[in-house]
């Protein structure tokens, strides 16, 4: 009896394991089939209008009758997209320029082509911090006077 229950347990475990792997390495695109077919329509418009300008292609997409819903052409390529700016991205040098010496920092950081986007954002975060601190200081000083 004990052997039978052990065998049944082992079989149940094996079945469960193979079922979980089958689930893990499978996918179902049926719930996005409408969106996918719309993107295929857009892809065809782009393919058949290789020599047209972006504006002409956009017009043809917007006026296309085969789309199930309107297609928003105003977006950027995902190849350049990145996650939102976080504290990990902060460049403290650029932040200090914005906080302590904004006019000079503007030319050192913002107009400098070698500085990356995160550094420029850090500068503006620093500048905004300075504006907030200065505003609070003036309000407190004004109220005290």
């Amino acid at each position, binding site marked *: 009896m004990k052997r039978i229950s052990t065998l049944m347990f082992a079989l149940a475990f094996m079945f469960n394991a193979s079922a979980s792997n089958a689930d*893990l*390495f499978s996918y179902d695109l049926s719930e996005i089939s409408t969106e*996918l077919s719309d993107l295929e329509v857009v892809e065809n418009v782009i393919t058949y209008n290789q020599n047209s300008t972006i504006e002409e292609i956009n017009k043809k997409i917007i006026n296309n009758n085969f789309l199930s819903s309107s297609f928003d052409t105003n977006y950027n390529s*995902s190849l350049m997209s*990145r996650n939102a700016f976080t504290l990990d991205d902060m460049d403290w040098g650029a932040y200090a320029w914005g906080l302590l010496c904004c006019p000079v920092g503007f030319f050192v950081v913002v107009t400098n082509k070698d500085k990356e986007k995160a550094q420029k954002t850090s500068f503006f975060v620093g500048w905004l911090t300075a504006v907030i601190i200065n505003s609070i200081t003036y309000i407190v000083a004004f109220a005290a006077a």
Partner: protein
Amino acid sequence: MKYLRLLLFSVIFLIPFLDFGQKAFSRIEAEITIKEIDSTSRITTGKMFYDKNLGSIYYSIKFPTREVVVYTDSMIYRLNNDKVVENHKSATGLKFNIFNLVLNSQMEYYGLNSSSYELVNTKNDQDQIITTWKPKFKNKKYNSGKIVMSQKNKLIFGLVSFHPDGSIISKQFFEDYTNVDGLMIPSKITQIAFINDKPEYKITTYKNLKVNNFDDQKNYSSEFYFSD
């Protein structure tokens, strides 16, 4: 003595003509289409060119805007009219880029066997070989979980990345392999990311794959232009 002379002749004159089947690949290019579906639907089309010796991937994007995006190991640049209009640090680099893995013959294990992950489990499941990989070291800043990989016919089929808490972060499927000069390259990659438990889909397809094209030098250099 006669045989020795014959052997020496063979070694000296015939070996250079032998093809050992080890062809060096350094360049790859393709037409690329990326379809993304989350709260909105988006499509990106263009061409990509990668030379592993130069360490840069050039994307000549035709839609939604005409621009060039360059991926290097540390940075990503957006160029418009040959001028850098935006740049930011690359979060992933080129190490796990699919074409870098293909050209370096690392696709079999998706480069995990030469990474900070170690193989902890292997099992056969019908037509698939399932391997489990765990991070060798714990990193407080980048807390990463296990990766489970599936291979079919010695080619990577699926890759599932887990959060340390056991939830699935993303699934990737590599399908429609094409034999290009002996290199097996997936021409369709489906990625499903689970952000806030809501799936986000990204389907990338490659057409007209070419390797070692040394004719169009401009496509692989900083003199990049919008090729038609």
